[in-house]
Structures are given as structure tokens and as C-alpha cells.
């Protein structure tokens, strides 16, 4: 389900000379060109490939914009759904971070803890969420709690593995230094292992945040009690053939994923940008 957790992001080019103005312009222009091409193909499909009565399969972009995004009632409904889903995703992410970090910290305290828990973390990762939806529904009802649980189940694994990887990658000489000074377990953890693991931990959070948004939307589909989330709206729009709203909802959920990704990138830059390569912005 997830890609392998990537602890270190690819370092960005930092030399000033490679970032002269013309290159910067090209960096902005290139994705814009792709955007225009995609829009062109979209228009072609809507108006040329599809006959008017089948146009709902791919409504032209301006209709999506006008009906889906600029109509105040529709936009309010979609944004409310998006907000509900965001709350679920954030609650799930926060829980996953809390539980996952504690598990990883417990694992580095003793080999036997790691050996006894790690295989089960892998098993957790392989459980097909959809298969246990009915169970979750039984136990936690079909509302907010169940949706959060789906997020936690999806987001937990990358947090455990990245945190564990980070905590274990402390230099041996640093450990020696702390040993010589007679550092306590807590000092070792708080002053050496955790700060050193921060870049890896933040990468884990970033991956988990994306997964948590996906988990929340998937959860919306199955746990339909309470405020409707964006996933449920998407399903409803599909059933009612309201494809303009459907497209708008999909676009806004992608935007949510993007905002979360950026947000965590920014957080990383703030926390470790001053000393670690992976989170430096271009100088």
C-alpha cells in the first residue's frame, strides 16, 4: 500500500549559480505548459469525443469551475465536507504519531521489545483495511471514531518504521561520548537519539499525513454517520450524476493532500533546516 518509507529526501541543489532567473522562469513555466496541455485534452474530450448526452462523464473545466467551485451553495457543501474529512485526518494522524512514536521509542529500549512488536507492526500494515471495515463498524459504530481508526491503521506503520530507523541511526561514537559521560537513558534519548532522528521522523510524518488524508476519504465512504465527509459527498455526487460537483470535490481533496504535504515540508524546514540537508530550502 505504501512505498518504502524514504527517510531521507533527495537533497536539493543548493548552489546559487544554478538558480539564475531564466532557470527559475523555466521552472514555473514548464508545469504551466503541462497544465495547459492537459486542459486542452480535457476540452477536446468534453466537446469532441463525447456527445452532449454523455458529456456528464467529463464535464468541461469551465462548468466544473462555475457549478462546482463558484456556486456558493455547492462550494459551501463541499468545503464543509472537506473540513470534516480534514478533522478526521488530523485526529487520526495525531493519534498515529503519538502511538507510533511511543512504540518506536519502546522498541529501541530493548531488543526483545523490538523483536516482539515489529512483526506485528508489519502484519498491521498488511491487513486490508476494506476487509475489516465491517468489524470496525461493529466495534466503533459507523461515525467519526471509526473513520479516525482507519486513518490510524493506515498511518501508523510509516511512523513506526521511520522513527525507529532514525533512532537507531545514531553514530556509535556519539553513543560512546554519552557513555563516557555516564548519561542516563533519558538523557541519551532526549539529547541524542530524538534530535538526531528528527529528519527521519519528519519524513515519516509527511508520508503518514498523506496516507491519513487518503484514509479519511476512504473512511467517509464506509462510515456514513455524522457529518458527511468529502468521500461521502463524492460518492453521493457520483450516484446523482452531479459530475461538476464530483470533479470539484476531487480537485479540492487533492488540494488538501497538497496543502498537508507542503505544511509538513515547511515544518521540517523550520525544525531541522538549520542543520540537516534534507530540509533545507535553496540558499
Amino acid at each position, binding site marked *: 500500500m505504501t512505498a518504502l518509507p524514504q527517510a531521507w529526501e533527495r537533497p536539493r541543489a543548493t548552489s546559487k549559480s544554478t538558480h539564475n532567473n531564466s532557470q527559475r522562469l523555466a521552472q514555473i513555466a514548464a508545469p504551466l505548459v503541462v497544465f495547459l496541455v492537459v486542459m486542452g485534452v480535457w476540452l477536446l474530450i468534453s466537446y469532441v469525443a463525447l456527445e452532449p448526452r454523455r458529456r456528464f462523464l467529463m464535464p468541461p473545466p469551465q462548468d466544473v469551475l462555475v457549478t462546482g467551485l463558484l456556486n456558493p451553495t455547492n462550494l459551501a457543501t463541499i468545503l464543509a465536507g472537506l473540513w470534516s474529512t480534514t478533522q478526521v485526518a488530523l485526529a487520526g494522524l495525531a493519534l498515529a504519531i503519538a502511538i507510533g512514536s511511543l512504540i518506536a521509542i519502546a522498541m529501541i529500549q530493548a531488543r526483545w521489545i523490538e523483536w516482539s512488536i515489529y512483526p506485528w507492526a508489519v502484519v498491521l500494515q498488511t491487513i486490508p483495511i476494506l476487509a475489516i471495515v465491517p468489524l470496525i463498524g461493529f466495534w466503533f459504530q459507523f461515525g467519526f471514531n471509526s473513520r479516525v481508526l482507519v486513518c490510524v491503521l493506515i498511518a501508523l506503520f510509516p511512523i513506526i518504521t521511520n522513527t525507529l530507523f532514525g533512532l537507531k541511526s545514531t553514530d556509535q*561514537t*556519539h553513543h560512546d561520548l*554519552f557513555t563516557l559521560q*555516564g*548519561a542516563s537513558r533519558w538523557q541519551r534519548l532526549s539529547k541524542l537519539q530524538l*534530535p538526531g532522528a528528527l529528519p527521519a521522523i519528519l519524513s515519516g510524518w509527511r508520508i503518514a499525513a498523506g496516507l491519513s488524508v487518503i484514509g479519511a476519504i476512504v473512511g467517509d465512504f464506509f462510515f456514513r454517520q455524522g457529518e458527511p465527509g468529502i468521500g461521502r459527498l463524492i460518492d453521493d455526487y457520483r450516484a446523482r450524476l452531479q459530475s461538476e460537483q464530483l470533479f470539484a470535490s476531487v480537485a479540492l481533496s487533492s488540494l488538501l493532500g497538497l496543502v498537508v504535504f507542503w505544511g509538513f515540508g515547511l515544518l521540517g524546514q523550520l525544525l531541522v533546516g538549520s*542543520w540537516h540537508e534534507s530540509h533545507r530550502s535553496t540558499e
Partner: protein
Amino acid sequence: MVAIVGPSGCGKSTLLRLASRLTSPTAGEISSAEGYLGYVFQDATLLPWRTVQTNVELLAELAGVPKAERSRRATEAIALTGLKGFERHRPRALSGGMRMRVSLARALTMRPRIFLFDEPFGSLDEITRERLNGELLGLFERERFAGLFVTHSVSEAAFLASRVLVMSARPGRIVAEIQVPFAYPRQAELRFDPEFATIAGVISARLREGIR
């Protein structure tokens, strides 16, 4: 100041690890003086997220020295090692030689009576190394600590130490002890003294015998 020279892999570092009790001996006993041991590693072993100032404060912080006192000690050690003005820099912004100074300053804050040096200048270029050798001797004069200096550089050993122990490769044994008669303080020009060359030659010859 005692220096230990030997070919790589002969157990010089292990000796220091034993002396500092980082490693326990498989057999035999170690007797060492009580008191605080300063240990300077091959790498500077600085924490990259800390500034020079807080890196230097680290050991005192771990030992539970109150904030005001450890900051005073760090300021003093930073001045002694010529790092004034770099307090707020992070290790990534420093050169290898500067990082080694931070590492030295960090050990100094604990006012050790005995210093163990594990090839601290091994990865530096010769110019920086000779300069730091000189500064280390200056510190040695002022602070009057005892030093056990492991190196694979013959001239570094002869320049710093009053006694040089030569180790042989596998099994690691001490095969020679050479007195270096020059008085402290020593000047950089000592390296070009004919007598210095003679002593370096003797150490070097013993070292080659040990390898054979």
C-alpha cells in the same frame, strides 16, 4: 604527555577504550587513576543540531552542572581554543580543524586531569594539524593535564610527547619506549632540529621492526 604510535589495526584505539572503560577487557586487569577522563575522539563527534556554544556545554549539561556555571565554563574553553566569535555557528559551517577545536573545548569544560586522545588530528591536513599540535601544547602548559596521545604520525608523537611508546602489529604489544628529551614549551621550529630528526628516525625504525 605520552604518545603511542603503531601501525593501523594494532590496537591503539582499543587501548584507549580499555583505559576509559568503554570496553571491558576479556582477561586481565586495568588500574587507572581516579578522576575525570577527558576523551577526544577521531571525529569531532559534535551534535549537528547544536551550536558551538551548546556543543561545548554538552558534557557539563549531562553531568548536571547548573546553567550559569556551564555557560561560564564553555565561554572560557571557547576562548582557550580560539573559537571566540563562532559561538552561534553550527558544526556544518565549520572546517575540520575548527570542529576539532570545538571537540577539545568540550572536553576542557570538565577540567580533566587525564586526557585520552584517539588520533584527533588524523583526518586534518598537515598545516592545520601542526597548528593544532602547537595549540594543544599551549593548553597542556596552561592546564597541566596528563595526556595519552594515540597517533600514527611519528613526527606528531615526537613533537607532543616526552615519552613515545611504539606498538607492534598483531599481536599488539609495546615494543619500545623512547624518551624525547626536549623541554616544554616547544616551538614549531623544533621539527627542523637535527636532534628531533634523529629521534623521529629511531621511532620510525622501531615502528618498522614492529611491523615486520
